C-alpha cells in the first residue's frame, strides 16, 4: 500500500514549488512583505504564548496534580499588561500599515498613466499611445505606472498579487493605484471583487517587459491613433469646440492647461482639476459650474462611452494651448473620417472613426 500515484504527484509538485508568498515583482512588494513578516512574527509569538499558557497550566494544574483550586480574583497589573502590550503592537501595525497604504494609493507626479476599464467580464487597458489590450497589461520595469480605473457596470477589482496592489474599479468614478515593476516576467491579474457569473474568468496576465521590449511592444500594437488624438476627434464630433474654442468671446472656458489647476466653483469652493473632475465636468456639468460662466453646458451622459470619456480626458489633459482646438474647429468635418491604420494586436477591438461615442 502506498499513497495513490495522483496524490504522490501532487505532493512532489508541491514540495518542489512550495511558496507561501507570491513573487515580489514591484518596488512596494518587499515593503508590504516586511510588514507581513512582522505581523506574522508578532502573531506567532502571541499564539505561542497563549498556547504555552494553556498547555502549561493544563499540565501543572490538572485535577490529578492539583485537586483543590485556589480562588484568585484577578490581577490589575497582569491585566493591564495584556491590555497595553497588544494595544501597543496593534498600534505599531496600524501606523506602519497606514504609511504603506498611503504610499500605494498616492501616485508620484511623474507616473505614466494607463486607463483601465472593467466590465463584465473583461479588463480593457488603454495606453496613452492608443494601444488597447484586453485581459492583459504590458508595462515596462523601472517606471512608475499609475492606473486610472473605472467600471462600466458593477464593482470589479484589479489585483496583481505579485505587486501586492489591488484597487476596486467602481462604476461612475475613477480610482487610482500605482506601482513600479522591478522584475520582467508574466504575472497573474485577477478580478477579485465578485462581479457575476464569469468572475473567475476575468483574469489575465501582467506582462512586465524591459524598457526596450516594452517599446517594441508599443510599436507593434499601436493603432496609430493615440488616446489624445481620439479625444480630439470626439471633441470635434461632439461639438465641444463650439463653446470651448479658446476665443475671447467663447461661451465656455478655455480648456488649455486646465488640468492640474485649481478652479473656483460658482459655489465658491475650490477644486483641483484631475481626471475625475474632468470626467464629472463632462457628465454632470451643472454640479460643477465654474465661477464666471453660465450653466449652459449640456450633459453628455449616455452619449459617450467610458472609453470615449477616457479619450476626452486624455485630450484635455494634454491641451497646453488652444491652437489645436482652433485647428480642429476649422477641419471639423474632415477629422472623424481620417483613415485608421491597421490596428496591431488590439485583440480585435473595433476601430471606427472616433471611438467611444456610445452606440444608441
Amino acid at each position, binding site marked *: 500500500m502506498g499513497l495513490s500515484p495522483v496524490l504522490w504527484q501532487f505532493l512532489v509538485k508541491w514540495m518542489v514549488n512550495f511558496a507561501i508568498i507570491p513573487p515580489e515583482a514591484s518596488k512596494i512588494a518587499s515593503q508590504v512583505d516586511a510588514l507581513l513578516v512582522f505581523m506574522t512574527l508578532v502573531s506567532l509569538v502571541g499564539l505561542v504564548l497563549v498556547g504555552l499558557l494553556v498547555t502549561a497550566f493544563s499540565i501543572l494544574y490538572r485535577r490529578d496534580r492539583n485537586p483543590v483550586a485556589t480562588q484568585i480574583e484577578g490581577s490589575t497589573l497582569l491585566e493591564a499588561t495584556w491590555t497595553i502590550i497588544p494595544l501597543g503592537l496593534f498600534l505599531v501595525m496600524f501606523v506602519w500599515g497606514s504609511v504603506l497604504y498611503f504610499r500605494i*494609493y*498616492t501616485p508620484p507626479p511623474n507616473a505614466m498613466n494607463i486607463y483601465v476599464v472593467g466590465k463584465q467580464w473583461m479588463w480593457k487597458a488603454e495606453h496613452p499611445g492608443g494601444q488597447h489590450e484586453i485581459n492583459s497589461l504590458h508595462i515596462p520595469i523601472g517606471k512608475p505606472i499609475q492606473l486610472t480605473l473605472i467600471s462600466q457596470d458593477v464593482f470589479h477589482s484589479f489585483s496583481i498579487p505579485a505587486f501586492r496592489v489591488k484597487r476596486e474599479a467602481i462604476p461612475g468614478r475613477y*480610482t*487610482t493605484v500605482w506601482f513600479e515593476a522591478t522584475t520582467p516576467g508574466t504575472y497573474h491579474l485577477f478580478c477579485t471583487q465578485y462581479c457575476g457569473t464569469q468572475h473567475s474568468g476575468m483574469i489575465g496576465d501582467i506582462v512586465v517587459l524591459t524598457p526596450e521590449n516594452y517599446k517594441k511592444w508599443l510599436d507593434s500594437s499601436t493603432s496609430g491613433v493615440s488616446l489624445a488624438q481620439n479625444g480630439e476627434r470626439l471633441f470635434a464630433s461632439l461639438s465641444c469646440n463650439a463653446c470651448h474654442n479658446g476665443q475671447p468671446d467663447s461661451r465656455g472656458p478655455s480648456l488649455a492647461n486646465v488640468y492640474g489647476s485649481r478652479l473656483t466653483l460658482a459655489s465658491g469652493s475650490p477644486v*483641483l482639476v*484631475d481626471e475625475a473632475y474632468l470626467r464629472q465636468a463632462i457628465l454632470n456639468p451643472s454640479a460643477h459650474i465654474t465661477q464666471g460662466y453660465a450653466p449652459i453646458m449640456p450633459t453628455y451622459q449616455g452619449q459617450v462611452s467610458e472609453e470615449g470619456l477616457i479619450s476626452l480626458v486624455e485630450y484635455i489633459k494634454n491641451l497646453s494651448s488652444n491652437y489645436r482646438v482652433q485647428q480642429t474647429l476649422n477641419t471639423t468635418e474632415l477629422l472623424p473620417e481620417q483613415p485608421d491604420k491597421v490596428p496591431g494586436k488590439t485583440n480585435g477591438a473595433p476601430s471606427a472613426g472616433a471611438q467611444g461615442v456610445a452606440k444608441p
Partner: protein
Amino acid sequence: MSEEFQNHDPNSGHTETEQHIVGPATYGIIFAALLVGTALTIGASYLEMGAWNPVVAILIACIKATLVVLFFMHIKYSSKLMKLTVGAGLFTFLILVGMSLSDYISRAWGQW
C-alpha cells in the same frame, strides 16, 4: 447602553416607584409649543439665511422632538434607565450618520 450598569437598582426585580401621571395642562402647553414650532419652521424656510436655513430647520425639529420625547412620551418622569436607553439610541444614530458622512466629507479633501 453601556453605562447603565453603574447605576443599577439592585432590586430591579421589584421596582415599586409610583408612576407619575402627566396631566392635560402639560399636554396642552406642549401641544401649543409644537404648533408654534411648526409655524416657526415654515416661517424660517422663507427667510434667506444661507447655510443657516437647514441648521435652523433641524434645530427647531430637534426641539420639537425633544418636547415630544420628554413630555408626551414621559421620559422626563422616567427612570434613569429609560433616559439612558433613549440616549443610547440617539448616540448610535449619530454614529451611523456621522461616521458615514465623515467618509463623504473627507473624500473631497484630497485626490482620492
